């Protein structure tokens, strides 16, 4: 049953040192405010799952929260590479991290298998691809009916999933619209889930019956954080801050610049700062 909480309480109650955690959102609805709260609370030794680690994990990795990252595309979309993640992989700064690399199809299937309560995902993939030579979690099974060899990977079963969404109603049901990514699967695959939302409304009575809804009894905690996806976007509320993605390329290129930026924009402020960041977008 969803509890309405402050972001500080929701992160403190649901994210523990050593957890396997997914912060999801496919370019759209990336839960940046929740990740910043995890950074402020100084969580350690996390295994971070995410299809596209993106700025949000570059920040968490650069602040030393991660011991392992499970991913399928480690880029700053439309811009280039993730410089903090590379510094951790190549130079162990601020600490070394393990990586487990998949394809998008594999990650999406692994979330779906987690939501479906299966131990593994089965799909037609990785044929001729080099990743199966370097990632021991990419294996194969033979179809018992046709004999076709198919790829198999372990299901994602995070301890906790964090997602951002448009709105919740008073009961705690959550509406996700636009590019919906893997958020529904991530929430249903996880033991606990925290959803930050742009808005809390009375009810969902006027909505189309087939929209993507997470019923209140599938969500652990709901937090009202306007602007909480910035510099990602929330469809119907504000656009992607493309300039911030470009700027990150410069900030993340230098350890000192990065550290100073994180202090000023994350450590020394709270989630209420996000509303101002999306004004005019």
């Amino acid at each position, binding site marked *: 049953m969803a509890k309405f909480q402050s972001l500080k309480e929701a992160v403190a109650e649901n994210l523990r040192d050593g957890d396997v955690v997914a912060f999801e959102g496919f*370019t759209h609805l990336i839960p940046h405010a929740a990740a910043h709260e995890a950074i402020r609370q100084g969580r350690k030794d996390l295994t971070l799952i995410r299809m596209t680690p993106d700025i949000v994990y570059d920040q968490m990795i650069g602040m030393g929260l991660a011991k392992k990252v499970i991913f399928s595309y480690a880029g700053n979309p439309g811009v280039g590479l993730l410089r903090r993640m590379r510094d951790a992989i190549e130079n162990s700064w601020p600490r070394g991290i393990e990586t487990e690399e998949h394809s*998008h199809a594999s990650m999406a299937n692994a979330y779906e298998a987690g939501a479906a309560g299966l131990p593994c995902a089965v799909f037609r993939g990785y044929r001729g691809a080099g990743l199966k030579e370097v990632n021991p979690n990419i294996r194969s099974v033979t179809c018992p009916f046709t004999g076709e060899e198919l790829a198999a990977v372990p299901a994602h079963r995070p301890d906790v999933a964090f997602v951002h969404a448009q709105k919740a109603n008073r009961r705690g049901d959550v509406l996700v619209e636009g590019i919906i990514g893997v958020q529904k699967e991530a929430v249903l695959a996880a033991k606990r889930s925290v959803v930050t939302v742009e808005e809390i409304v009375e009810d969902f009575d006027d909505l189309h019956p087939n929209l993507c809804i997470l019923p209140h009894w599938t969500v652990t905690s709901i937090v009202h954080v306007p602007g909480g996806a910035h510099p990602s976007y929330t469809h119907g509320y504000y656009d992607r801050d493309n300039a911030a993605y470009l700027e990150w390329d410069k900030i993340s290129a230098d350890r000192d610049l990065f550290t100073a930026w994180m202090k000023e924009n994350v450590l020394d402020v709270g989630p209420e700062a996000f509303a101002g960041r999306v004004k005019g977008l």
Partner: protein
Amino acid sequence: MTNFSDFTPNEMMTIAAARALSNDDVCFVGIGAPSAACNVARLTHAPDITLIYESGTIGTAPNVLPLSIGDGELCETAVTTVSVPEMFRYWLQGGRISIGFLGAAQLDRFGNINTTVIGDYHKPKVRLPGGGGAPEIASSCKQVFITMKQATRGMVEKIDFYTSFGHGEGGNHRERLGIKTKGPTLLITDLAIWKPDPETKEFTVVSMHRGVTRDKVQETCGWKVRFSDRLEETPPPSELELTTLRELQARTEKAHGGKKGT
């Protein structure tokens, strides 16, 4: 006055790639791929082409090129937007996509692509972003088109990592791995159009863009280039093609504050 006989190699590359797409195609536009080509096709000779981005947007028709594959405009202009697991399971794996359009950091003569690492995987010289959707785009789409600028560091004798499988070591290597799709059938560069040899599957130059010499194609390619016996010249861009591309890019730059879309 705009001079339409004056065009850049990049413009020729994008327009040659656009021409290869048809109205009936269902095209999966992968990460790093020039969606410029796909959208020029849609805005000229192929208005009914279905463009799909891996963020789940099906039948999208953006007015400007997206900066990321998940830009809001892709969703707003799409026929429908599905979840990412559905995209990869029903639509890509389900065999609904006719053409996968990929770019490459490194490419070999058999259309194998590396966007993962330069150097050894475990001790990389350069850690690139990785494959994203490409490994399964390369095996599940009915055929694959590749587009990239020619350079010896990109077009190499041997790629460092098989991010996505083209024709492997050539010949029937795909079939031997149980892959039933055609794989790379077209390579469009800033200098030429290449197609695989029907037997060996090695990319062969079938058409050079206007003003390009064989030496220039060889100098910018890391393997010994084969030329078709019936080598043609790529028709230069038409006024409509060039105007459409330039207007699309101008709208994109204006929308993204100077940054070109992908």
